[in-house]
């Protein structure tokens, strides 16, 4: 279903698609796939809701976002379960992320009646002041790695500043976004202020960016797609915010506290099974501690519990999809061809309970030289659009 102007609707074309359970490879949920004509409906809904949303006074808007935060916490188990199942993310991480999403709505609820314009002491005789105004209809394009949290990062401040929204979640992971929009209605946020249209990035994302009534695009996803977003947005000088890929370095000097640095090095790259734009996927070790550090890393990598994401003891779940696992597996091959040393991981588990899922053991390469492709390229597959 799509959520447009407060109603759960099928796509106008009647098209559907299936979500694939990353733990089994089997379809588990069928959803309406939005098309270009649904983008038009959703944008028109958001446009029509602008005046009403601006009329809601700052205290009432604050209260609505706080109520939404409370509803998120009241539905925490349900949201965490959906997210874990949909992304293949350990339930413990999903539960933390639901709380972070609620925190985010509380934070921006507080900003609503504290952030405004200013008066400026200009030279000319008179009074100079600024109004801080909403941009208008914003198109939000969210990723599959932290679907609810990153959606909250966009929706909460955009609503706080008085905008109305069309949200396109990643097509693989739309479930918590749809639920969030229902909770927003229950919190009193008027119909049309937050519309959600899951669908293919190449169709829905592009139509949203091209739509003349959309004044701003906020996109989180790959650098490749971010380039296209910026290019398309240029036609009508649409505002863009882009949060794209990384290949971040974790630099450990010989005087570091290794008791802390080793476990943090593990989790700064393997949190969310490594599917994090902030993952510190390059570890730079100063020579005197190199051998001892690597030994301890290997020990900790091997001790991690890979398993079903819904098992509360699981530390590493599946990757989001089989395509993503194949992509990482390709990088592992490239690393071996380039002459890096594969110290552990690099393969999928073969046990009967895990063999059907998109699992991959945490992989560690040493002897990586900075010019190697595995040191320069990201292993996150293009997502979102």
């Amino acid at each position: 279903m799509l959520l447009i102007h407060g109603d759960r609707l099928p796509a106008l074309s009647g098209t559907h698609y299936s979500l694939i359970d990353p733990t089994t490879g089997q379809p588990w949920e069928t959803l309406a796939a939005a098309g270009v004509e649904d983008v038009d409906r959703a944008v028109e809904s958001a446009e029509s809701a602008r005046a009403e949303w601006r009329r809601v006074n700052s205290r009432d808007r604050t209260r609505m976002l706080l109520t939404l935060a409370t509803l998120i916490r009241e539905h925490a188990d349900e949201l965490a379960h959906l997210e874990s199942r949909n992304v293949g993310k350990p339930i413990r991480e999903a539960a933390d992320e639901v709380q972070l999403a609620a925190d985010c709505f509380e934070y921006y609820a507080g900003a609503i009646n504290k952030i405004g314009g200013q008066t400026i002491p200009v030279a000319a005789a008179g009074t100079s002041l600024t109004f801080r105004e909403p941009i208008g209809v914003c198109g939000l394009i969210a990723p599959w790695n932290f679907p609810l949290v990153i959606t909250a990062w966009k929706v909460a401040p955009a609503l706080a500043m008085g905008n109305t929204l069309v949200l396109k979640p990643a097509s693989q992971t739309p479930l918590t976004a749809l639920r969030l929009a229902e909770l927003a209605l229950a919190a009193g946020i008027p119909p049309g202020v937050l519309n959600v249209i899951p669908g293919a990035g190449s169709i829905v994302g592009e139509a949203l960016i091209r739509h003349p009534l959309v004044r701003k695009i906020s996109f989180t996803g790959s650098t490749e797609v971010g380039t296209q977003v910026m290019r398309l947005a240029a036609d009508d000088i649409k505002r863009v915010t882009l949060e794209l890929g990384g290949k971040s370095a974790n630099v450990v000097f010989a005087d570091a506290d290794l008791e802390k640095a080793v476990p943090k090095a593990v989790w700064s790259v393997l949190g969310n099974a490594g599917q994090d734009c902030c993952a510190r996927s390059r570890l730079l070790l100063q020579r005197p501690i190199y051998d001892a550090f690597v030994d301890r890393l290997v020990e900790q990598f091997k001790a991690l519990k890979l398993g079903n994401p819904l098992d509360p003891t699981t530390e590493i779940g599946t990757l989001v999809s089989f395509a993503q696992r194949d992509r990482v597996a390709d990088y592992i091959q490239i690393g071996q061809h380039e002459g890096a040393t594969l110290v552990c991981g690099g393969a999928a588990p073969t046990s009967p309970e895990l063999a059907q899922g998109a699992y991959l053991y945490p992989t560690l390469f040493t002897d990586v030289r900075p010019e190697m492709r595995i040191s320069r390229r990201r292993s996150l597959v293009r997502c979102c659009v």
Partner: protein
Amino acid sequence: MLCVTVFDTEEEAIAIANRSLYGLSGSIWTRDISRALRVAKAIETGVISINTGHSVHLEAPFGGVKRSGLGRELGLAVLDHYSEIKSVFIGE
């Protein structure tokens, strides 16, 4: 997937860290506060943490430099990216 690389000097570590088209996050581990701050300034990134992996905070700006992005999310910084400033002048 984690790629481990060895370095000898601070300058070399900075050069390797910056040898990337991206600049989103990063961490530095050292007990030498002056070095931590020197390296934090020298690394081309939008976000960096010192002696912790915890670099993203709801209340602080988050975003990338180079090909990691444009604009900032989170903190009060994001509010400028969801609003327009209209400048008004009233003559006497």
